[in-house]
Structures are given as C-alpha cells and as structure tokens.
C-alpha cells in the first residue's frame, strides 16, 4: 500500500462542525465554524488580530471547550478523549512559555513524552532515546544540558518543536511560532516545520500573521475574520487582492515569488503605506 492510499483511508486529522465559542466578556471568538484538516496536510490559519485564530487552536486541542459544535480528532469525538489520549494524537507548540528556571533542555523535551508514560510514569530508555533523537533533528543536541532560562528566542523555539516531535502525535499545531524572531530565525523555524511535515510525516496546522512564510510553506491557507472562515484554499487562491482587501484594508502590495520550496510560484503580500491621492495605484504588481 502506498503512502497516498493509506492516508486516504484514515479519517481526517481534525474535523470541526459548526463550532461556537463566546467568552465570558461577551466576545464571540468563533462563530459557527466548520473545517476539516486532512491527514498529512500543511495548513496555515491566517487572519487579523482578534479574528479567532488562537481561540480556534485552543478549541481544536481541547484546551478551551467550545460552547457548541462537534470536534473529531482522527475520527474520535474530542469530548470523549481524556487529556492523555488527546495528547497522543495532537501536539501543541505554544506561542511562548513561562520561564522554567532549573530545568535543562533535555528535561524539557522529555516532558513531551508524558502521555506515553505508564505505571509509575518513569522515563524509559526509549523515552530518553526519542528525546535525544528529536533534539538532534532540530540541531539542539549541543545545548541539551543548558538551562531553559538561558536560551535565545530562536533556540527556545527549536526546543519547543523538539518537544512536540518527542510527543509523537500525528498532528502538530503551532501558535505563531515566529512572532518573536528575526528574519533568519523565522526561516529556520519554517524549514524545521517543513522537515517535520515531510520527513516525520506530521500533519501541520500553524497559526501565523506572516502571510509570506505561510504562502511559501503551507499547502492550504484558511483565512479567518470575525470568528468565521473568510477564504479557504491554496495560497494562490487565498492571497488575492479582492479577498485580502476586505480583511486587511487596501494598503497592501502584491507580487509573486518565482519559485518556492514547494517548487511552484507563490504569491507574496506586503503592507505598503501608499502616498496620499494614489490609493488607486496598482502597487508593485
């Protein structure tokens, strides 16, 4: 059986039906949203601040219970899974983490193995091997013994990805993984996610503000606005003037990358403060 066929036989990694979430302060974060994430997909959720991206991510991982609607993880109702069973299916790379003084990088990555522990929940040699292997995959072996509170932003992000890998869940969700990083480290992180997708065969859902990195790396973009899906499709279908203007306003410039890591040309979008009176200009495209 080829990889493609076996993927088609599996139920969707995540399937959400008519999900609603309203916070205690009356803010409607998710408003009747339905979507499916196929197995082996690389999906990016984009959208302006407050559009419900991060809320959706928390709801999909079960960390924030939805008010109504149905969420299936690999064909099983999320509500019927306990925290451990859920963690074996879905791993989350949080946007940031509270400082953990005293814990080493290796300790931290080992915590990703928690859902696999049984009995007295002692780490087995295999757990330690997986943790070491995952540290190697993100090129973090050299600082395995350093403290979690003595690392740069880029190193931290690498270690958090290593922990998600060590969790060995088929689906990995990432919450704005590049928001605090410089350009080189943004690219480094996306390359790691790409490797995780290709080589470790993980389904990837990444929430991001960076349309251009999403365009280069993701196969599918979901654009959110006011708790709903405003557009859903390939980067070429979603990153279009007539769609984005409604969501982000008119001060945008558009163009195409000739070739990207996917081997195809992909669109790019930049914020552009247009000169007064020239708002009808065609920008750079």
């Amino acid at each position, binding site marked *: 059986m080829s990889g493609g066929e076996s993927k088609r036989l599996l139920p969707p990694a995540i399937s959400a039906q008519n999900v609603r979430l309203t916070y205690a302060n009356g803010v409607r974060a998710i408003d009747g949203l339905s979507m499916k994430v196929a197995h082996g997909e690389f999906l990016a959720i984009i959208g302006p601040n407050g559009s419900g991206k991060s809320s959706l991510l928390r709801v999909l991982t079960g960390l924030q219970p939805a008010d109504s609607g149905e969420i299936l993880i690999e064909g099983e109702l999320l509500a019927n899974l306990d925290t451990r069973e859920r963690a074996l299916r879905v791993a989350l790379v949080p946007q940031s983490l509270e400082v*953990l003084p005293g814990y080493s990088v290796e300790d931290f990555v080992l915590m990703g193995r928690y*859902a696999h522990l049984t009995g007295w929940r002692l780490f087995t040699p295999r757990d330690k091997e997986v943790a070491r292997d995952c540290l190697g995959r993100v090129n973090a072996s050299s600082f395995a013994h350093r403290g979690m509170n003595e690392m740069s932003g880029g190193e931290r992000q690498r270690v958090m990805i290593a922990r998600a890998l060590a969790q060995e869940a088929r689906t990995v969700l990432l919450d704005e993984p590049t928001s605090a990083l410089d350009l080189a480290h943004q690219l480094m992180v996306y390359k790691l996610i790409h490797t995780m997708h290709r080589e470790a065969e993980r389904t990837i859902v990444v929430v991001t503000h960076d349309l251009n990195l999403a365009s280069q790396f993701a196969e599918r973009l979901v654009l959110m606005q006011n708790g709903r899906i405003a557009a859903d499709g390939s980067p070429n279908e979603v990153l279009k003037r007539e769609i984005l203007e409604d969501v982000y306003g008119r001060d945008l410039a558009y163009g195409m990358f000739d070739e990207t890591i996917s081997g195809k040309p992909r669109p790019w979008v930049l914020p552009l403060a247009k000169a007064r009176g020239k708002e009808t200009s065609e920008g750079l495209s």
Partner: protein
Amino acid sequence: MNSSERARFLTILLLLATPVLVLCATAYSETASGTLVDAARLIGAKLHLLSVTDNLDNELLKLRLFRALCAAGVGGSLALAGAMAQGLFRNPMAEPGLLGIGSGATLGAVLGIALLGGYGAALGRFVGGADTDSVTPPAGFTLGLVPILSLFGALSIALTVYRLSTRGGRLSVSLLLLTGLAINAIASSLMAMIQMFLLSDWQVSQAIMSWGFGTLDDRNAFQLTIIWSGALLALAAIPFVGLELDLLAGGELDAAALGADPARVKTIVLSCIAIATAASVAFCGQIAFVGLLVPHIVRMLIGPKHRVLLPLSFLAGATLLLSMVVFQHGVCPWFAASFRAASHPSWGTAFDRIGALQPGILTSLIGSPFFLFLLLRQGKRGEL
C-alpha cells in the same frame, strides 16, 4: 557533582541523620539524660524487637521519643507542604502560612481550645445570647476536638482561597496570594477577638498563646498518629503529582497540552497541603519558616524536579526540627552546665532560656535572616 549526584548524596545523608537524631533526641535531655543505648533499647521495645527494658525511667524516655517523632513528622509535613505549594503556585514565596491555610488551622484550634476550656456556652452567649455559664467542658468533647476543628479550619480556608482565586477555571497566582493575605487578616482578627474575650482566664489564654508559638512537648500516641497520618498521606501522593508539578511549571495550558490533568493535580496537591499542614498545626501550632526555608534550600542543592524535591524536602524538614530538639534539649543544657561549672552563671542561664524557647520562635529567629540572605544572594546573581 551534578544535581542528581547531589540528590543521591543528600538522600543518603538525611536517611542516616534522621534515625541518629531521633536516638539523640530520645537519650539526651535537661533532666535525667539517658544514654544512647537506653534510647535504642526503648525504641527496640516499642517496635517489639526487645521484650523488656530495665529500671530506667521509661515514661520519661517515652515522652522524649514521642517528642522526637513528633518533630520529625511536623518538620517533614511542613516542608513537604511548602514544597508542594511552591510548585503548584509556581512561586518560590508560596507556603501554607502565606496562603491562609495555617491561620485557618490556628483559628480552628483556638476555637477548639476555647471550647475545651468550657467556653462553648459562653461563646454562644457572646454570639447569640445563651444564658448558661458552664465552666466544665461539655460532655463528649475530647482532646480530638482541637485537631478536628483545626483540620476543618485549614480545609475550609484552603477551599475558600482556591475558589476566590479561580476565574473561568484558571487559578490566578497573584489573586491567590492576595486572597490569602486577606483571609489571614480575617482569621487574625477573629483570633484576637476570641483571645480578648478569654483574656481573664489565664489558663486558656496561656494555652492559646503558647500553642500559637508551637510546641513539640507532651505528645501522646493519638497525636502522633494524626500527625504521621497527614504526613504519610502527603508522601503517598508524591508519585501521582511529582512529574505533573514539573509540567505545571510551564503553565496549566501547556501541561494540559502535554496530557496532564491540571485540575486533578491542583485538587490532590491542595488537599495534601491542607491535610498535612492541618495535622501538624493542630497539635504543634505554627512552626514558622520551615515550609518556606527548607524547600528553598533543597531546590538550590538538587534542582526543581519535584519527584526528588518533594521527598527530600520532607526528609530535610524532619532533620531540621529534630536537630532543633537535640540542640535545645541536648546541647543547650550541656552548655549551660559547662558554663556554670566554669563559674559563668549568666551564660548558663542564657543557654537554659534558649533551651526552653518554643521551637517556632527559634526557627523564625534563625530562619528569617537566613532566608533574607538567600534572597539577596539570588537577587545578586539575577536568579530572581
């Protein structure tokens, strides 16, 4: 030496020190010091390893043995509860006392002492207007009343603070510390009220006063059973919450994403903190700073991993209070006698006084400056 080697070394050291200190605390005292052999014989007899002990004053030795076991149980419980509180609230300053659990236990115990002192009806009249003025304890009230009320006080305060600090299913640490502060103030004012009310009865007042400072003396088997039940319960929970507290260090959402159940961990840990603290405070009063100081030092030595930190904090707390007992009742009388023999009677008196101090006062006296020193040192290194 890395942290796991240090942990192993410390474990062996403390496991060896504890029985030796129990032996010393049983053998040496200001009155009629026995020898280590006498103490060992008594413990052997208690454990049914030896059949009889000889003509030594067994009753005296037994009291001392109970005092030592009480010190070990109380010191261990308070340090373990402190380590658990610091882990749960992700705050190195957290301890049961600051959270209001200790004062809840104290308030319950003070009420219990007042009721035992025969003030049930009088308190009732003060509040509601009953007209009998009985001065004998109401029938059916036994010594068990104080710990039961104390346990009840601690648990209800723990629950109140927990409920008041939880917003939308998430426990807010800053809110919790502030709530604890407010609850402490309420409990102290209620305690002050009861104390004022009972001021004219010097026996009850004195009992409340000295109980408040903490005492390890005059223990019986019943009290030891309660103290050690609380301690063993909290110890038994360690395998179920140790690793989870490590996961919680990164925040509750993160722990949940990794597959832990934060709500369950919080419930177990808070119950253990409340029960262990209450069982100790119910009989021995507040022994300050053990819960704050001991876990802090152990963490500096062996790192923050709770599966090692929690049991070692227990052992270190037990060792600390045991050492205090040996110092006060073994070392101080010896110094006092030596100074008197060398015709320095004022120094002799000073050591007698130190030996007679409540251990809670001594731990505060030694603990607080040491704690300040640790904080300043960590602040200088940028660790805080």
